[in-house]
């Protein structure tokens, strides 16, 4: 399977700020990828580089087999949806659909209009008159209807209430199953998305911290809850991601490399072992060494 | 997109056709219209330019030359003709007769100003028309002029009829009755017995002859 995106040592510097530092990754075909990271981690810069909006300062990037910057053959197969999209103020939704049909050879007009009706929008409405949430809905509709082989969405559900967000997740998933292609969704609401994603990429300070499948991530760490006198010596030989103490108790998130012997020991000493949410792993890994997690992470 | 292109093309074709019908084919506005009429020099010349201002002057030719400086369109220029009966010349231009208001469309597209050929009339040789017609008559032939505003220079004047008349350097041959509203006679040879009946006028620097 060929890579849809391949980056090696990618750097992007804005004046004195390094937005991307030596970013390397590869993304295969027809995958649903989640892109996570703190504010300013470099997610949007990475997506804009993939969408050909900006030029990398150094390093290599290949999207759909070519460099994306100013490459029409690559760009024709990409759609980038973000909250900053500003269609011309006088345009109506139906007109934007007409443009979509011109620009994207796989544009599904029937699907676009169906979604528009579903979300109670009208082709005659002007884009500038939509509320923020409605604009987000419309942008998502355009993103899905383009059927672009690479669909990049930066915070696609911003401004949507939880009910609409869930509806959209279902629609995206259904559409992805029926028309497989590569999706990269950047969002802060990973707990909502994790059930539909296949892989997650964590970017922190312009670098890829990890790129793992959801299954791997779900079993990547465990949460231990027990007495301090039992856990403290036990944790000395473990990769600790986070610890919290409550009186005599300690709750610790550690990398899941527990052996059978370890599990037996913990059970015998009344230590609770539970799963860790992916969101928590993301938080622990990106807190800049405050809990010691990221510093000790080895990928 | 296709519909838009077709609509524009149709508009262009219709416009071109309409322009071909509505606009003059060639630029004639500043041209002089000249007509030469042969006459019997021994008899009076009768110039009937009723409704127009006319300037009559003497020349060394044997015929009468009628020139007009009125800005006219191509189609109107063709109909600007005269009726000639012996020594009598009458203007028969029904189109412009007694038309005292003129609407002009003088400016073409602005960038065309740089090309001399297309410069509008007032950029070239048309100045404000003081007289609609300029008529040259052979030396010594007496003139009999009907018009609105009349000027006669250096001719033998037999009769004038109009709102105003100005005669200079000429020779008067007959009385002036009330057919002229305001009369000016200057530097002329005036027979002693000629009678002027005008209420308004100026008789100055003339030479009285017997």
């Amino acid at each position: 399977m060929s890579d849809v995106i391949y980056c090696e040592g990618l750097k992007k510097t804005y004046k004195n700020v390094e937005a991307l530092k030596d970013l390397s990754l590869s993304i295969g075909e027809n995958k649903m990828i989640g892109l996570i990271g703190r504010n300013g981690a470099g997610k949007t810069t990475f997506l804009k580089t993939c969408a050909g909006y900006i030029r990398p300062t150094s390093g290599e990037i290949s999207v759909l087999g070519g460099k994306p910057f100013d490459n029409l053959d690559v760009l024709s197969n990409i759609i980038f949806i973000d909250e900053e999209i500003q269609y011309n103020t006088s345009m109506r939704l139906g007109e934007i659909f007409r443009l979509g049909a011109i620009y994207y050879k796989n544009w599904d007009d029937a699907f676009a209009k169906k979604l528009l009706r579903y979300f109670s929008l009208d082709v005659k409405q002007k884009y500038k008159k939509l509320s923020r949430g409605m604009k987000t809905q419309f942008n998502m509709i355009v993103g899905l209807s383009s059927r672009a082989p690479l669909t990049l969405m930066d915070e696609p559900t911003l401004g949507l209430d939880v009910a609409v967000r869930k509806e959209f997740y279902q629609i995206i998933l259904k559409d992805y199953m029926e028309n497989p292609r590569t999706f990269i969704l950047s969002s802060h609401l990973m707990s909502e998305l994790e059930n539909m994603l296949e892989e997650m990429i964590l970017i922190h300070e312009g670098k890829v911290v990890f790129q793992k499948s959801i299954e791997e991530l779900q079993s990547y760490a465990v949460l231990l809850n027990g007495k301090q006198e039992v856990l403290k010596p036990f944790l000395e030989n473990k990769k600790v991601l986070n610890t919290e103490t409550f009186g005599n108790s300690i709750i610790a998130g550690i990398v899941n490399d527990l052996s059978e012997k370890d599990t037996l020991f913990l059970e015998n000493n009344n230590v609770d072992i539970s799963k860790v949410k992916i969101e928590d792993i993301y938080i622990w890994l990106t807190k800049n060494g405050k809990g010691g997690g990221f510093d000790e992470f080895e990928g | 997109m296709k519909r838009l292109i077709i609509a524009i093309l149709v508009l262009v074709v219709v416009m071109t056709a309409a322009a071909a019908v509505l606009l003059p084919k060639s630029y004639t506005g500043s041209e002089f219209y000249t007509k030469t009429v042969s006459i019997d020099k021994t008899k009076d010349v009768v110039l009937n330019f009723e409704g127009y201002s006319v300037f009559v002057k003497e020349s060394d030719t044997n015929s009468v030359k009628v020139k007009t400086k009125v800005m006219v369109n191509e189609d109107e220029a063709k109909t600007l003709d005269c009726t000639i009966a012996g020594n009598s010349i009458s203007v028969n231009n029904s189109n412009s007769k007694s038309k005292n208001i003129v609407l002009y469309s003088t400016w073409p597209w602005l960038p065309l100003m740089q090309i001399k050929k297309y410069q509008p009339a007032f950029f070239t040789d048309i100045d404000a028309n003081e007289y609609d017609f300029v008529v040259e008559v052979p030396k010594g032939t007496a003139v009999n002029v009907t018009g609105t505003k009349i000027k006669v220079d250096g001719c033998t004047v037999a009769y004038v009829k109009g709102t105003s008349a100005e005669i200079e350097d000429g020779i008067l041959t007959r009385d002036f009755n009330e057919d002229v509203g305001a009369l000016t006679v200057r530097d002329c040879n005036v027979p002693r017995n000629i009678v002027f009946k005008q209420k308004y006028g100026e008789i100055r620097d003339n030479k009285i002859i017997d």
Partner: protein
Amino acid sequence: MNSKDNRQRALKGYVSSSLMGLKQSYILVTFVLLGLFAAYCIVNVILALCGAMSNSSGGALLVGFGVAAIFAVVTVLMMSAGKGKRAAFIFPIDRKTFAIGSFIMFILNSAFILLLSAVFYLGEVIVYKILGLIFDNIMYINNVTFESYITGFWVSLFYILFVAAITFFLSILFSRFKFPAVIIVSLAIGLPFIFPFGREAYYKFLMFFIGEQSLVLICLKLLICSMLLQFISYLPLKKMEVIE
């Protein structure tokens, strides 16, 4: 990947989106021209009926050319400004498509206003001809011939194209290089006026266009210079990033 197909799609899309985006401006300018035409006809008719000899020195063709030039400058600034560029690059286009598409838009915008003016001018002629038929004392003299009407349209189109190309060039230069570009361009324009040879050069440059008496040559000169300017504008565009 079919490059030719992608190029055609991008170009068609860019021109279509620009046309859609300018729809309101087109409507506005149509009403402005219509208003001017109506006001102008009414004033002339009143003047004529009052017995004043009126001269249509500011007819629809003259006004239309002025409006077309202003419209060209405004639309070019709209297209080449940050917001306009951002709106253009929402969809998949490259910088070459942006430059070529903009050039096509210059032609379409200019042609639209000039066509409109040409239609209004015919309306003006019809109004005057009707007046001439109704009132015996009114004579209509038209010095705009069919030939000058048609050729003038083309020369005007190329002149406005040239104005649009200069505006686009300066706008791209300023938006790409910001303050240094303002200084350099101001000096480049202003300094030659100090020296006689500079003034002469300006005069020669001006006469290169307005001194030309051949219709074909003037159109060719304007077209080639506009295309050249657009190509020069494309060079700084090539590395332009789409940033807010």
